[in-house]
C-alpha cells in the first residue's frame, strides 16, 4: 500500500513538475482539486501514466463519481482503487 502511494506521488510529481511541490508532501489526504490544483492537461497526462504503470483507467474511475466526490477525490482514494485492482 505504501509502495503504491509512493509511486502515485512520484507520477504526480512528474506531471506537475518538482518545482511546484517543494515543501508539499503528497499524502493520502492530498486532494487533486484543491491541494494539487491539477489542470485538465495534467490530469490527462496523469491518466496516461497510471494506465501505463498499473493498467488503471482513471477516466473510468472518475466516470462513476458525482461532482462532490470528484471535488473530494484524494490521493488515498486513488491509491485504494489501484491497490484493489492490481
Amino acid at each position, binding site marked *: 500500500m505504501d509502495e503504491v502511494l509512493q509511486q502515485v506521488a512520484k507520477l504526480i510529481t512528474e506531471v506537475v513538475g518538482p518545482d511546484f511541490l517543494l515543501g508539499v508532501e503528497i499524502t493520502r489526504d492530498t486532494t487533486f482539486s*484543491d491541494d494539487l*490544483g491539477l*489542470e485538465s*492537461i*495534467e490530469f490527462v497526462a496523469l491518466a496516461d501514466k497510471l494506465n501505463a504503470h498499473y493498467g488503471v483507467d482513471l477516466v473510468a474511475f472518475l466516470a*462513476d463519481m458525482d*461532482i462532490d466526490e*470528484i471535488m473530494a477525490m484524494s490521493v488515498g482514494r486513488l491509491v485504494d482503487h489501484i491497490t484493489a485492482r492490481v
Partner: protein
Amino acid sequence: MSRFLFVVPPLTGHVNPTASVGGELLARGHEVAWVGHPGTLKPLLPDNARIFPAIDDLLEADIRAKRERWLALRGMAVLKFFWEEFLIPLGHSMVPGVDAAVRAFQPDVIVADQQALAGPLVARNAGVPWVTSASTSAELVNPLRTMPKVDAWVRDLLHDFADGDIRFSELLVLVYSSAALVGQEFGDEVAFVGPALAHRVERVDFPWEWLVRGEETLGGQGARCVLVSLGTLNGPAGERFLGQALEALAGLDVRVVMVAEPRPAPPNVLMLPSVPQLALMPHLDAVVTHGGHNTVCEALAHGLPLVVAPIRDDQPTVAAQVVQAGAGVRLTYSRARAADIRSALESVLDEPEYAAAAGLVRESFLAAGGAAAAADRLEKVVAG
C-alpha cells in the same frame, strides 16, 4: 423587416458577438434591441442601440463580487460554483426584465446567449422562437462527456430551471468559430459563422503614436509586436504567471502591449488596463492569451499565431483547438516559467508554420461569413 431581441449576461465576451450580429441586422433595416445590464451594454453597442434593463447596478456588483470568489476556486469547485451560484441565480434574476422587454419590444426572434438562461425560458412561455448565441464553441463538444454523473447534474439543474436543456436551441445555434477549428461536424441547426467582428464599436483610447514610433524607428525584428491579454487575473496563480511573463518579455526583442493594471514593467512593454483589441490586431505578430474564445478567434481571424495558457472553463478546450490546428503553443498556466513562456513565444514568432496554420484558420473564418452569415440565418428563422 423583423424584430430581434438579444438576451445577454453582464460579460463583455458574451455581448461582443451580439454587438456585431445586431449591428449587421440594424444595417439591413431590422429593429434590434438588447436586454441585460445597461451599464455593461452601452460601451459595447452602437450609439442608438435600444437597451432594456434586466440587471441593475446592484445585482451587477453582486455578480462581480461572486466572480472574485469564483476566481479563487480550483478544479471541480469552479464548475459547481459556476452553475449553482452564478448561472442559475442569474437566470432567475433576469426573468422579470427579459419578460418586460419581450412584452414591450414584441420580438419575432429572441437570440439568447448561452449564459443568459432567462432568454429561452421567457421565449418559450411567450411563444416566441428562440435561438442560441454560443459565445464559445467549447460547450458543443460537451467537456463533461467523460463524467456522466456530473453531466447529468448539469442537465438536472437545467430541467429544474426550465424543464429542458436550454443551452442549445433546436432552431439555430450561432457559433462564432469554424467547423475546421472545432474539428467536428454537428446538426444543421448548428451554424458555424466564424467570429462576428463587423460593426463592432471600441470606445477605448490607445496611444497609437507608441505603435507608429516603434514601427518607424526599430524596423525589422524589433518592430514585431505582441499582445498579452490574460483576462481577469486569477489570484496568486495569476500574479505568478504575470511575473513570469514580464521576466520572459524583458529578454525578448519584441514590443509588447499587455492588458493589465499598471505595474513596473520592462521598457519594451506598454501596460494598459484596457485596449481596443480589434483595432490593434492588424499591427500584431502574435498573441499571448489565457484562451478566451473571443480573443483566440479574433487573433486567428487576423492570421496571428498564439501562445495559450488556459486557466479554466472553456479555455482548455479552446487551447486544444489551437494546438490541434497547429496555430499555437499551449502552456500550463499555474506552472509555466519565464523560460517556457519565452521559448513558446519565440517558437510562434520565428517558426512560420504557426502563422501559416493560423492563416488557414483565417480562411475558414472568411468562408464562414461572420456577422452577415449570422444575420442570414436569423432572417431564415423569421421566414420559418
